[in-house]
């Protein structure tokens, strides 16, 4: 006889019932306590090392001897120089962004919509700059365009043009990747529909595909704008003596003119510019959401650690006659490759160049103590950098994973969802607030009780972890979100206890993104310059800061040693990135991609 009415639970064997509940979720109290811990630790970290310093910084700009005081603002804003700086910062960032956005469509068309030999290599080359330390890039362009460089005849040693080139160098590959990954997830059929309706390849691209790519173009573009507007080392190294942006001006006011008030006001202005770009980016992301749901495409920074399948549609990769934007895209890609390859090749070449021809003298000089006014050699600075970056990377990875776990949950209660949204935007804020602001904030807050870290070794790892944190979250979170909750449920229903479900479902999917995130966190930390340049003391000087100091000293051989140091720094970064990418990319990677394709 079949029971139709719902039976009260005591009728069932109690053991079976309990087991069922346990298998599906954690005990409620344990889950809540776990979540509180996992959410609380990053929040505390951010409150102490981000909100407090930045809030203090803002207050410093407003506070007078008694109460609120706007005179600091009035004074700074009444200077024509301030407006010139703002204009230059925005203009420079906008120009670089426009170039990157325009170039990203043809490059993505070639590298993500076509299949050909050497495509993987080209993709990898275009993503190299993103992980490269900014000091290396500044130096590479200086060696290319400056006195003695092969392109010195162009006469653009410093000022607008070299900075613009460096900014495009940094971001064009990132932009193409964001657009490309979005494009791969895009349904190719609307474009095909346009072709059948009589649109030529170019018109179909412009009237149907580009509008469909708009969310990725907007989100990626505002991200690139953000990076460009807060660029520090490229402007400092390539701008020359008189060329400054808001970011370098903050540094100048603090480190050389000792006008902390003006620096605070400029930091607030910088934050306003950044907030505007972030707001634009999130507005673009919101608009994209329905599309993303349908196609499963990632965009924004989320695309970084991920390659996606193309939804199992063979047409997307087959050389299809619907798509004929070949030569222009090949040309634009070639230009981008030249822009990225030439400075790097030249950097390596010039680092080997000494008075008597090619030699390793510059590299041997890395072991000389006493260069750059340091009590130790550049090689020792490199060691120090690696230790600091390992600590910073570990902190960023631990906290970033916690944040990603919290953000990947889909709470039912409205208050929990609101809290999650707030958590999300606060966590992403360090991405927007420039590194110089972070360093400056540390300098003026963490120098007295209750937390005096001024002479502590930990100051730099903490600052670098803060800078790397958003990147970790943005790399891990999309992977975590891509796990279908039904997979978890299926594993649970099949009898897996919670830890086993986590191991079999989550951990398996997350291995690669976590490895990539760890590598990025390390790479960002080891090359971090903006915050570290504020905080480094003689005994905690990292390699990037040491290279910059060396650059400020006269002498051809000092320049040569700085170049060798830059190559060393780039090699450390590249090695770690290559390890992370290749370790997980053998045959299981292929299987994973196929699986992803099948799921989408």
């Amino acid at each position, binding site marked *: 006889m079949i029971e139709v009415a719902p039976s009260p639970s005591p009728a069932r064997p109690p053991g079976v019932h309990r087991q069922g509940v346990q298998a599906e979720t954690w005990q409620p109290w344990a889950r809540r306590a776990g979540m509180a811990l996992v959410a609380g630790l990053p929040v505390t970290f951010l409150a102490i090392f981000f909100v407090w310093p930045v809030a203090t910084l803002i207050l410093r700009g407003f506070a007078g001897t008694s109460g609120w005081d706007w005179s600091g603002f009035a004074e700074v804003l009444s200077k024509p120089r301030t407006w010139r700086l703002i204009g230059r910062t925005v203009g420079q960032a906008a120009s670089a962004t426009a170039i990157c956005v325009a170039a990203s469509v043809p490059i993505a068309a070639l590298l993500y919509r076509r299949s050909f030999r050497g495509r993987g290599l080209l993709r990898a080359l275009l993503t190299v700059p993103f992980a490269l330390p900014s000091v290396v890039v500044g130096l590479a362009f200086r060696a290319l365009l400056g006195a003695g460089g092969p392109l010195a005849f162009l006469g653009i040693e410093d000022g607008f043009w070299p900075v613009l080139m460096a900014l495009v160098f940094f971001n064009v590959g990132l932009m193409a990747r964001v657009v490309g990954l979005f494009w791969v997830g895009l*349904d190719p*059929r*609307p474009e*095909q*529909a*346009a*072709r*059948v*309706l*009589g*649109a*030529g*390849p170019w*018109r*179909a691209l412009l*009237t*149907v595909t580009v*509008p*469909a790519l*708009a969310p990725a173009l907007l989100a990626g573009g505002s991200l690139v704008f953000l990076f460009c507007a807060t660029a520090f080392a490229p402007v400092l190294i390539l701008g020359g003596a008189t060329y400054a942006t808001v970011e370098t001006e903050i540094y100048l006011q603090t480190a050389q003119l000792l006008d902390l008030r003006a620096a605070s006001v400029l930091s607030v202005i910088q934050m306003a510019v950044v907030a505007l770009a972030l707001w634009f980016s999130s507005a673009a992301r919101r608009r994209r959401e*329905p*599309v993303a749901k349908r196609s499963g495409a990632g965009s924004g920074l989320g695309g970084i650690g991920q390659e996606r399948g193309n939804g199992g549609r*063979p*047409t997307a990769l*087959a*050389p*299809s*006659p*619907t798509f*004929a934007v070949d030569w222009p895209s090949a040309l634009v890609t070639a230009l981008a490759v030249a822009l990225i390859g030439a400075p790097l090749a030249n950097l390596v070449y010039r680092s080997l160049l000494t008075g008597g021809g090619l030699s390793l003298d510059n590299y041997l000089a890395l072991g000389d103590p006493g260069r750059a006014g340091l009590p130790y050699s550049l090689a020792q600075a490199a060691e120090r950098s690696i230790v600091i970056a390992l600590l910073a990377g570990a902190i960023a990875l631990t906290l970033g994973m916690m944040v990603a776990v919290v953000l990947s949950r889909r709470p039912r209660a409205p208050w929990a969802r609101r809290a999650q949204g707030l958590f999300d935007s606060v966590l992403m804020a360090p991405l927007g607030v420039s590194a110089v602001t972070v360093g400056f904030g540390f300098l003026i807050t963490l120098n007295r009780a209750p937390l005096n870290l001024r002479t502590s070794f930990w100051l730099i790892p903490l600052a670098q972890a803060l800078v790397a944190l958003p990147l970790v979250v943005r790399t891990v979170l999309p992977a975590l979100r891509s796990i279908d909750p039904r997979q978890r449920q299926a594993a649970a229903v099949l009898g897996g206890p919670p830890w086993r479900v986590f191991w079999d479902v989550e951990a398996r999917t997350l291995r690669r993104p976590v490895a990539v995130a760890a590598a990025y966190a390390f790479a960002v930390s080891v090359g971090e310059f903006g915050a570290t340049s504020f905080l480094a003391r003689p005994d905690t000087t990292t390699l990037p800061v040491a290279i910059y100091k060396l650059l400020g000293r006269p002498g051809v051989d000092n320049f040569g040693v700085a170049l060798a140091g830059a190559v060393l720094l780039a090699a450390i970064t590249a090695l770690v990135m290559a390890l992370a990418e290749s370790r997980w990319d053998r045959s299981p990677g292929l299987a994973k991609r196929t699986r992803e394709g099948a799921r989408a």
Partner: protein
Amino acid sequence: MSAVTRQDGAGQGGGDDARLDGPGRLPRGLAVEAVTVRYGTAAAVAQATLNVGPGEVVALLGPSGCGKSTLLRAISGLEPLAGGRILWDGQDLAAVPVHKRGFGLMFQDGQLFPHLAVGPNVAYGLRMAGIGRAERTAQAAEWLNLVGLSGYWDRDVATLSGGQAQRVALARALAPRPRLMLLDEPLSALDTSLRADLGAAVRSILAAADTPALWVTHDPDEAAAADRTLHLPASPAHLPR
């Protein structure tokens, strides 16, 4: 090896003979001759042969995964051929790119452009044909009227129901007056009740426009409305190269 094996005179018995072309005469309309389409080494369509005469609506019936859609895409020029020929009025279309073939293709799920409203979607093909704004607005409005959606010009396509979206897709495909309509399971995404209604509507609109059509479906009821039905057997799987 012929992939298209059987022909029933489902619509009009005996009509087939009139459309068969004698030797020496140029065949009118569409002729597909031993067409093969490959994805990698797998053949999605193997040696398919069929023709569609003037004013004729031909149904192509077969189980899912047998390559019907791929064949339609090949005819429209969206898939490269690994073998065989596609001709229109006796002329090989190999060198004619997709946008110059003058065919209309209606996708299973409409594929309306999400960034355009209903009206501009319908007018898109006319715009590509270089027809001026006033003229194309008038024509597109007329087509919208014909599919029973007058007054929907400014509607966001995301707000349409499945049936409405397919009507708009039909209007959009027909507006540039294609010389052949290719319909790829145009009703399969719809509810059963809606399917019968819209199927009849599509049939009568095609007749009114006097447009020949190749109608791909897996539903024998749907195929019954056609003049002629062709059967495509299950996938030929891997053919030797």
